[in-house]
């Protein structure tokens, strides 16, 4: 009997445990970011099917740009931009080395932050995507037919190129502002004399609508604040550009304290159309400069670098009606403009509230000259006169705001680690979702245009910790995908991202995918070192330079036996891939090469330099599994002593 009671008691206990567990499970499935049960279906893209959106994530300290699909979170490509990329030979091949030329010499790395896709009439057109190099100020243009970096322009008078690269709604300008103010021109001077002496350059880079070619139209030389982020006006405010500032204190040391003292910093409103007119009519001052302009050509498969020697600068106080300051609380970070162009959001990162300015009120205040003093000759508008509204106590540490095109805004909060949805105009908070952990930027595909595709929101989190299987102290960053098509945001997916994505740009896949190139036509190859027919494959000596004109086709190199190379020679492998089919690259690797490999796309020519240091017979091979006979795709170079009389010879298939 006692035994029976014991069994009964333990049965009851087990039942209790089970029901407790059930309770927890239920809570778990709802609790963490409101993960609903059909989330898996919403992100599932069946094998062989395509994603609905492309998303381009900046790489931060990787210097590159990665391409993902949404909603699956699958990564498709890493596009090398500001960093050498041994995978393809970008920045190692002779053709691409000039892309890294700067006024500081060869700079093979940068910190890439804010990608932005080209627009026409305020809509994404998918021609190009631009991205900034933050460290050694540069702007890059990536061609969205080839997904390759085709242009990099350096910015003089600039440092910490952070409020970049944002484009106007017809891609008239790519705009790049300096985060760090510096002496202009650079000179040897005491750091403590910063205040009043340093300048902040805001660069307006024009874009040729046919070729995409960039050129600095003018640099607006602003007071020495820190220009943190920016966005163009759109629709009704097209023609204006807005920049957040911090360190209006102009401190030069212990900045975390000294530049956080002012109750309000500024959003600088720049009427670029007025300045454009001014410079088109001969305004501005040309000043000597030295900056690199590097262009990659798809027909020659070759980059060239030109040093520019002059830049046009504009003093904002010389152009009436060009620049105004909008007081904005506490070191605003993100500067975001809603799709109608009416609301300018200052995400005051140290403020408890979100400040929203009204474009209409701003114009009215300017017209009625309701100024509240000036800073370095630039009129300051009254806070109350331009304020549209305040989102009260939405969270801690607001950084960035995106828009869904349906009258809602989504702001990321770094400190309280959440995304908050609120309504434009009423300023009421509609929903909030936790993110894991400490979100930086958010991104809605098309969010930087007049017509956002308001279906998904991606949070780019700065802290990963326990979200994935641990991989030691260093972790990839983590992105989180939300469905925002309903009233409440719904967390669908976590996926790791490469480097540190600061921002991303998304576009509907059908706009891009039809334009994506499959391969380069060999007949259009204008590379001076191209070998267009196997019969022209050859080896030439010019002093101690040996030029090998080589071709590849499944599955051999022509030539594959080369003799007459000597220790101390500088050997150039100019390799042309003769394939004319989609997705048949060939690789090239040479034993002991002090650089990288080459990955050569069909129809393309790339050149690798090899300086043989040892006598012997040294193999090279194809690194890309190109065919069933890939392992046989190899060859030898015979290296003779420096004083040898060995004549050059080369062959393929001779016994």
């Amino acid at each position: 009997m006692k035994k029976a009671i014991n069994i009964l008691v333990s049965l009851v206990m087990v039942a209790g445990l089970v029901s407790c567990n059930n309770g927890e499970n239920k809570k778990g499935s709802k609790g963490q970011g409101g993960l609903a049960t059909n989330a898996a279906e919403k992100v599932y893209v069946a094998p062989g099917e395509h994603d609905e959106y492309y998303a381009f994530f900046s790489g931060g300290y990787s210097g590159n740009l990665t391409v993902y699909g949404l909603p699956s979170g699958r990564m498709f490509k890493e596009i090398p931009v500001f960093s050498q990329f041994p995978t393809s030979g970008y920045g190692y091949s002779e053709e691409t080395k000039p892309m890294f030329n700067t006024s500081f010499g060869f700079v093979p790395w940068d910190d890439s932050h804010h990608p932005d896709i080209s627009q026409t009439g305020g809509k994404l057109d998918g021609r190009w995507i631009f991205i900034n190099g933050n460290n050694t100020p540069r702007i890059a243009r990536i061609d969205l037919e080839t997904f390759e970096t085709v242009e990099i322009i350096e910015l003089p008078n600039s440092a910490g190129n952070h409020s970049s690269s944002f484009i106007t709604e017809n891609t008239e300008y790519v705009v790049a502002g300096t985060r760090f103010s510096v002496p202009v021109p650079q000179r040897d001077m005491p750091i403590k004399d910063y205040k009043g002496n340093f300048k902040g350059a805001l660069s307006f880079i024009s874009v040729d609508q046919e070729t995409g070619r960039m050129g600095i139209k003018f640099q607006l030389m602003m007071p020495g604040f820190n220009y943190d982020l920016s966005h163009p006006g759109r629709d009704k405010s097209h023609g204006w550009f807005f920049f957040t500032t911090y360190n209006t204190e102009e401190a030069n040391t212990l900045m975390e304290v000294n530049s956080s003292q002012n109750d309000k910093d500024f959003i600088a409103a720049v009427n670029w159309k007025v300045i454009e007119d001014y410079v088109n009519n001969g305004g501005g001052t040309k000043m000597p400069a030295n900056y690199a302009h590097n262009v990659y050509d798809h027909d020659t498969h070759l980059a060239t670098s030109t040093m520019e020697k002059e830049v046009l600068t504009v003093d904002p106080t010389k152009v009436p009606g060009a620049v105004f300051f909008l007081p904005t609380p506490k070191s605003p970070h993100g500067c975001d403009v809603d799709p109608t162009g009416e609301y300018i959001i200052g995400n005051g990162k140290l403020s408890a509230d979100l400040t929203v300015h009204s474009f209409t009120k701003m114009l009215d205040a300017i017209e009625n000259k309701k100024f509240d003093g000036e800073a370095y000759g630039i009129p300051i508008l009254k806070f109350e006169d331009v304020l549209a509204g305040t989102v009260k106590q939405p969270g801690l540490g607001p950084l960035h705001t995106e828009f869904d095109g349906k009258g809602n805004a989504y702001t990321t909060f770094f400190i309280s680690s959440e995304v908050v949805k609120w309504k434009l105009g009423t300023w009421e908070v509609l929903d909030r979702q936790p993110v894991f952990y400490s979100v930086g930027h958010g991104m809605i595909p098309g969010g930087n245009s007049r017509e956002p595709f308001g279906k998904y929101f991606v949070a780019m989190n700065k802290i990963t910790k326990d979200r994935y299987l641990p991989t030691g102290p260093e972790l990839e960053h983590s992105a989180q995908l939300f469905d925002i098509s309903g009233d409440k945001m719904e967390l669908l997916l976590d996926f790791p991202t490469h480097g540190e994505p600061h921002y991303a740009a998304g576009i509907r896949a059908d706009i891009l995918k039809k334009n994506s190139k499959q391969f380069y036509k060999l007949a259009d190859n204008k590379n001076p070192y191209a070998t267009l027919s196997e019969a022209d494959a050859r080896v030439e000596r010019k002093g101690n330079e040996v030029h090998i004109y080589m071709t590849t086709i499944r599955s051999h190199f022509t030539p594959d036996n080369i003799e007459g190379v000597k220790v101390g020679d500088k050997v150039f492998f100019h390799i042309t891939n003769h394939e004319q089919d989609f997705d048949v690259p060939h690789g090239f690797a040479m034993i002991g090469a002090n650089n990288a490999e080459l990955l050569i796309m069909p129809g393309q020519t790339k050149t690798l330099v090899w300086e043989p240091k040892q006598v012997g017979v040294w193999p090279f091979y194809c690194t890309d599994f190109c065919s069933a006979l890939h392992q046989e795709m190899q060859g030898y170079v015979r290296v003779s002593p420096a004083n040898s009389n060995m004549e050059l010879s080369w062959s393929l298939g001779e016994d």
Partner: protein
Amino acid sequence: MIIGSLLLLGLFKFPLWNIMLGAPQYPEPLGMDIYIEGIEGVKEFDIQNIDGLNHYIGMKTIPKAEDMWEFEVFPIVIGAMVALGVIIGILGFFGKISYKWFLGWFVLMSVLGILGMYDFNQWLLEYGTDLDPKAIMKLLNPDGTPMTYKPPLLGYQKMLNFDVDSWPGTGAYMIFAGMMLTVVAFFVGKKEYKKA
């Protein structure tokens, strides 16, 4: 009759035959269109890519127009048949010759067509079996005989990793329609003759 024979002119614009080669790694199949004046790729580089694949099994490259006498003779034969058909048609229309000539043209065209098909099959046979003795891959059939690669004259066949489809092209359908029209012309002519 006139329209029927003129339809043959379509062969100068449209392919007579089409062979498509699909495989797991060719979701978009490679293909060749066989015209009376030569062979062309369905896409710009298909011939080059088919040749590239064929070199593994030691097949010769796909012949250029100048490499085969057929591509010189076929256009002349077709041109002559069109001219003959039109002349017969005109003469028949004005009652200068018997409607039986229409049938005569049809029979001649049928014989030429069968000869053409026979020649085409012979070429496929030679192309698929006359392999380079130094071929990279020499494959055997299950019975131990060397594998050959003759594409089907008509229909579908699985060859190694490739699905091969060989079907008449637009031009062939135009010949067929044209030849049928001449038969119709024959019967119409016969009816008219009986009435008269």
